[in-house]
């Protein structure tokens, strides 16, 4: 076979170019991360450890000019450090020089980061053993616990009714979430969307939106929606719905990403179109995991519905809130017992159903 030299040079160049590009990209990431890490350490040391702990100032002075100065210093230190190629981030992204200095700086800086984070955390949460074991504190705890274990049975009917409301609220939120979740999960599964630029953009944007929605707790959604549609079970339901969609879409799409490629590849090879490939290659593999996640979500939603009730989302949580506000601890005791019972039963049932599915 005669080979033309010009044609052979191209693939080699493509390899070399790819490698260079990746190295450059990783180095850029390393520089940014180094700057951030230095900035983080300086800010934590200055504000939490120096101002709050050593100087013990209550109202820590805040000035943007100060932040900018710290940022400026970090940019200089961080980039200088990264450019020596011995920094922690260079090591993380695999572009560091392989020498003793790298190892040493990585180790030392790693420890510094861990230590200052721990110390700052300790200072910020004001951990105090004294409060936990003070005389007043212990007496209060005794009073409440005593009352909790002598529940007031006269409100039992109301409690049961509110509990049923909570369970139904969770159920409706779960059921309504299913169709939305299904559709979204296909668009947020990397293996289905990565082939083409437009679909990848959709995937990326949807992922960001979902992450954002999920990062907001249902309680906060409940507050938002109770302003929007008025306090009560409806606001609680919408809050749960939104959170269920975002959380389950992630689980569903992970299930889709975890499927066997083989059947998908085989069906693609027959000349089937994308929708047919998904319907025949993907769907049969994910039906059971989807069912199981959905039942689990109902279980979670019952617990969450209780918490959401605390901020006016209706059901047993709202009732708990009202009695707690009146300091009627015997009534609160009954409610807590009922909640514990319901959560335990739901947990048991959903585990059993999920076991039966597999």
């Amino acid at each position, binding site marked *: *076979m005669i*080979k*033309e030299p010009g*044609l*052979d040079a*191209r*693939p080699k160049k*493509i*390899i070399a170019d*790819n*490698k260079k590009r990746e190295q450059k990209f990783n180095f850029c990431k390393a520089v940014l991360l180094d700057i951030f890490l230095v900035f983080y350490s300086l800010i934590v040391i200055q504000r939490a450890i120096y101002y709050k702990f050593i100087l013990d100032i209550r109202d820590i002075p805040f000035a943007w000019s100060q932040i900018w100065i710290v940022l400026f210093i970090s940019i200089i230190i961080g980039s200088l450090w990264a450019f020596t190629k011995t920094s922690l981030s260079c090591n993380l992204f695999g572009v560091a020089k392989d020498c003793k200095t790298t190892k040493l700086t990585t180790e030392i800086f790693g420890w510094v980061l861990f230590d200052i984070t721990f110390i700052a955390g300790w200072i910020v949460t004001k951990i105090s053993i004294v409060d936990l074991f003070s005389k007043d504190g212990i007496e209060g705890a005794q009073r409440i616990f005593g009352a909790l274990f002598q529940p007031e049975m006269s409100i039992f009917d109301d409690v049961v009714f509110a509990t049923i409301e909570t369970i139904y609220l969770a159920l409706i939120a779960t059921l309504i979430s299913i169709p939305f979740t299904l559709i979204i999960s296909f668009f947020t599964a990397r293996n289905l969307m990565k082939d083409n630029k437009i679909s990848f953009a959709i995937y990326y944007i949807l992922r960001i939106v979902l992450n954002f929605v999920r990062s907001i707790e249902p309680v906060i959604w409940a507050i938002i929606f109770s302003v929007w549609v008025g306090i009560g079970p409806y606001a609680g339901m919408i809050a749960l719905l939104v959170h269920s969609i975002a959380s389950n879409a992630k689980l569903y799409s992970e299930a889709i990403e975890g499927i*066997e490629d*083989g*059947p998908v*590849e*085989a*069906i*693609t*090879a*027959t*000349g*089937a*179109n994308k*929708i*047919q490939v998904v*319907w*025949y*290659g993907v769907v*049969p*593999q994910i039906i059971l995991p989807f069912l199981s996640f959905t039942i689990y979500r109902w279980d979670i939603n019952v617990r969450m519905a209780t918490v959401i009730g605390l901020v006016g989302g209706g059901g047993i949580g709202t009732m708990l809130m009202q009695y707690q506000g009146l300091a009627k601890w015997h009534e609160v005791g009954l409610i807590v017992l009922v909640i514990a019972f319901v959560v335990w039963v739901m947990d048991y049932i959903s585990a059993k159903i999920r076991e039966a599915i597999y």
Partner: protein
Amino acid sequence: MTLLRIQNLHKIYKNGTHALKGVSFEVEEGEFLVIIGLSGSGKSTLLRCVNRLIEPTTGTIEFLGKDITHIKGEELRSVKKQIGMVFQQFNLIKRRSVLSNVIVGRLGSMKTLDSIFERFPDSIYDEAKKCLETVGIEEKADVRADSLSGGQQQRVAIARSLMQNPKLLLADEPVASLDPATSNSVMQYFEKINKELGTTVVCNLHFLSLVRRYATRVIALKAGEIVYQGNPLEIDEDWFKTIYGDEAEEVEIR
């Protein structure tokens, strides 16, 4: 007539692996071409480039005289419809019946909605059954695919690709997960399809005894390059050593 013409094909994976380094060859209609080579020599990569499951980096692929290296969408699907493929791991839909697995081979010619709601014409069921007869397991039509043995699953996979009425049948180590006796029986179905239906077969194999028995021509790959091309009966000790390395020794399977 030349069915397939590959010229100077290179494949570089995203991670930088240079899996094919300028492969060129032709496949004539009616051939039973076998590709051999060590693990990692690029056999699967080559087959996957041919039906464009993966994108070749440079080079050209001609199928029936038409350049298909860069075609897309509808055009690419119509080429895929004419090329059947059988895999080492069978790749059936496990929870569905054997018959519906075979019908999958015809999806490319169906309307999307019809295929989703399974509104198939009666003739499709008949054809699917005929394909199952060709590979001798028509009696299993209604059982779940994952309840079959490996050899039976592979025959279903062959029936699925027969449903495409393929001009070319690719097989990526179709018998590598089967025992020797079953391997031989599955290979006989490939031979039958090649001889009786006249379908061109390109097949990756590991065992030289199978190669000698079924191949009309052999291509040997080593580290992404063709190191041997010719008659399977002419692979002697020396060629064997160049293909598989000095340490290798031939094992027989019957």
